[in-house]
């Protein structure tokens, strides 16, 4: 089935275009094309190679100005998905609707999508100015207007004065900005970023990702961003799509993904997580009491659990508290022995041996860390654990 959307001039959604002039060819259209529906709508996108399925029924809706992160381990299909949206890979089936217009049959060079590649893919034989101007020249933008737009965009990414440089003379961070400017100057309907920060060192990466987010919000441009780095996704995305083996594991805001992971895979992939096998002991009023291997009880929300079920319990290391043995108090807890301690500056990460199950426990660093071999008790708030069947 093929979805054709009739373009309906909806009520103006008051999109502020920061860039002064959109292209002549599209300026009339872009006013008409402001609509209420999602800016990007992907339905059942699938890519099948001979035997394997790279992407399986990927569906996503993103509003205008939304920053979506595709997150997952390598080989999870996130890059293939991005390349299908760009048109660089032909989907086996599925539909992509961009600003109300189906683009399945639109050749890549007319999709009006800006893309930043992992290795930046700058044109090595062109100057910074000519790199950025490339897309505008392909759109036959008048010379004086072109110059203005390129210079304005270079100013926006902080590269003013470097117009005549060769790209080989730029640092990694500067090259990445040229790539961003080149993708944005054409006023794309959609910005695609393929692991744009993976080639930068840690310090620079944090700065650049902040800059990308600021720029994205200022221009209010719908963005899909591929990364395998959970910190990147958590810190800049509005919406995170966690992928695994070509399928979507969970879609949600960073908060939802982190606090209510839909599966043990998501729990484990996003942030550190303790996963412990347990058995449901009793269920009462939608609350299940689960018995950990050590015999301790943990209370979890569990409407669909039945006594006797085997479950996996998950808890974040920072949700566990450490104290001297015996200091159980009102909340639930277990006792264990310190196996190892990693001092991480502000926090210290302990591995606690609880009946030969290792629990990771991140606490605020104190002047003297706990000695290895010391007996401690671990406590947690009721409801801090989450159960997965």
């Amino acid at each position, binding site marked *: 089935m093929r979805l054709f959307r009739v373009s309906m001039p909806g009520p103006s959604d008051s999109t502020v275009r920061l860039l002064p002039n959109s292209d002549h060819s599209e300026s009339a259209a872009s006013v008409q094309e402001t609509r209420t529906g999602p800016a990007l709508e992907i339905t059942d996108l699938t890519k099948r190679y001979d035997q394997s399925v790279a992407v399986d029924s990927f569906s996503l809706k993103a509003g205008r100005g939304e920053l979506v992160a595709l997150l997952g381990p390598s080989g999870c299909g996130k890059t293939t998905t991005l390349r299908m949206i*760009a*048109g*660089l890979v032909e989907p086996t089936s599925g539909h992509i609707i961009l600003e109300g217009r189906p683009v399945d049959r639109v*050749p*890549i*060079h*007319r*999709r*009006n*999508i*800006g*893309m930043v*590649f*992992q*290795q930046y*893919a*700058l*044109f*090595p*034989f062109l100057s910074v100015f000519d790199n950025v101007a*490339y*897309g505008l020249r*392909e*759109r036959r933008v008048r010379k004086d207007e072109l110059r203005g737009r390129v210079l304005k965009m270079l100013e926006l990414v902080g590269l003013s004065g470097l117009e*005549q*440089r*060769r790209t*080989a*003379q730029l640092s990694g961070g500067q090259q990445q900005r040229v*790539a961003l400017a*080149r*993708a944005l100057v*054409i006023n794309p309907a959609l910005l695609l970023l393929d692991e744009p920060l993976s080639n930068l060192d840690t310090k620079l990466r944090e700065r650049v990702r902040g800059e990308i987010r600021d720029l994205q919000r200022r221009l209010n441009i719908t963005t899909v961003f591929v990364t395998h780095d959970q910190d990147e996704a958590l810190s800049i995305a509005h919406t995170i799509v966690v992928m695994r083996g070509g399928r979507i594991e969970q879609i949600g805001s960073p908060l939802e993904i982190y606090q209510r992971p839909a599966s043990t895979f998501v729990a484990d992939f996003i942030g550190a997580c303790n996963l412990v096998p347990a058995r449901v002991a009793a269920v009462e009023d939608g609350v299940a009491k689960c018995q950990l291997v050590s015999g301790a009880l943990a209370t979890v929300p569990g409407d669909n659990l039945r006594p006797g079920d085997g479950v996996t319990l998950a808890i974040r290391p920072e949700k566990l508290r450490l104290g001297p043995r015996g200091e159980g108090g009102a909340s639930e807890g277990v006792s264990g022995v310190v196996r190892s301690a990693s001092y991480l500056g502000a926090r210290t990460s302990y591995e606690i041996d609880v009946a030969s199950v290792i629990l990771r426990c991140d606490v605020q660093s104190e002047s003297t860390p706990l000695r290895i071999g010391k007996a401690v008790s671990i406590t947690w708030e009721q409801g801090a654990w989450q159960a997965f069947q």
Partner: protein
Amino acid sequence: MASVSIARPRRLLLMWPLWPQALLLFAFFVVPVLFIGFASLHDKTGVLTARNYLSFVMDPYNRAVIARTLLIGISTTALTLVLGYPLARAIVRGPRAARWFLSAAVLFPLLTSSIIRSFGWLVLLANNGLLNDALHSVGLPKVHLIFNSIGVTVALAQVLLPFMVLSLANALTNIDPAIEDAATTLGSPPLRRFFKVTLPMLVPGILAGSLLVFAIAISAFVTPALIGGPRAEVMATMIYTDATQVGNIGAASAASLILLAMTLMVVTLYYRVIFSESHDSSARPV
């Protein structure tokens, strides 16, 4: 640099792995060229003269041979470029199975003797060969493809295609496919993308391949001798005739050195371009 501080004799000593090659080059290239140079400057009676060169250049027939040789060199280069690029692209960017098959197919002509290959072309292109028979059977007129520059060019292009394909494939391997993808997402349809993005990055490979093909094409002997014959004489066949049949060693030597000079000119030009390219991109004033 460290090497600057090392005394010259010691530096030569450190280059000992190059000595055998240097000796070989001296004994079998420099010395023969000196001999030929000596022979080219003497007439049959052993008197020092520049007549061999003068008469060679003055003779309109010889000038036609030079022109034909250059023309064959240029058209062979152009033909291998046009045929070689799609092949190189398929080998570098194509599916794995096609890569292996095409590489083997491209390299195969190098494994057969040039005499056998040339006879093969004769069978195909001769006036009563397979191609003309086929044309005749569908009512088309015959075309003359042997004993002229066309046949020689076609046959040479087949032999020299591997050199071009390998040079282009090598250059193509160094081009990140994402650069072409970037051009596409920025709005370039395939053909314009080729001319605006791929071609500029291919220049070193094109030059390297063209240099090889051109240099080998203008000095080729067996293929022009068999397919071109006496009616499409080139420098190499003329030198052979002068030296062995006419016995005019002086004229043959002069022609050899002119051919060598032509090749050297192309090589020099190549290095000029390559040097200015790399110079340009590494240190351009801001």
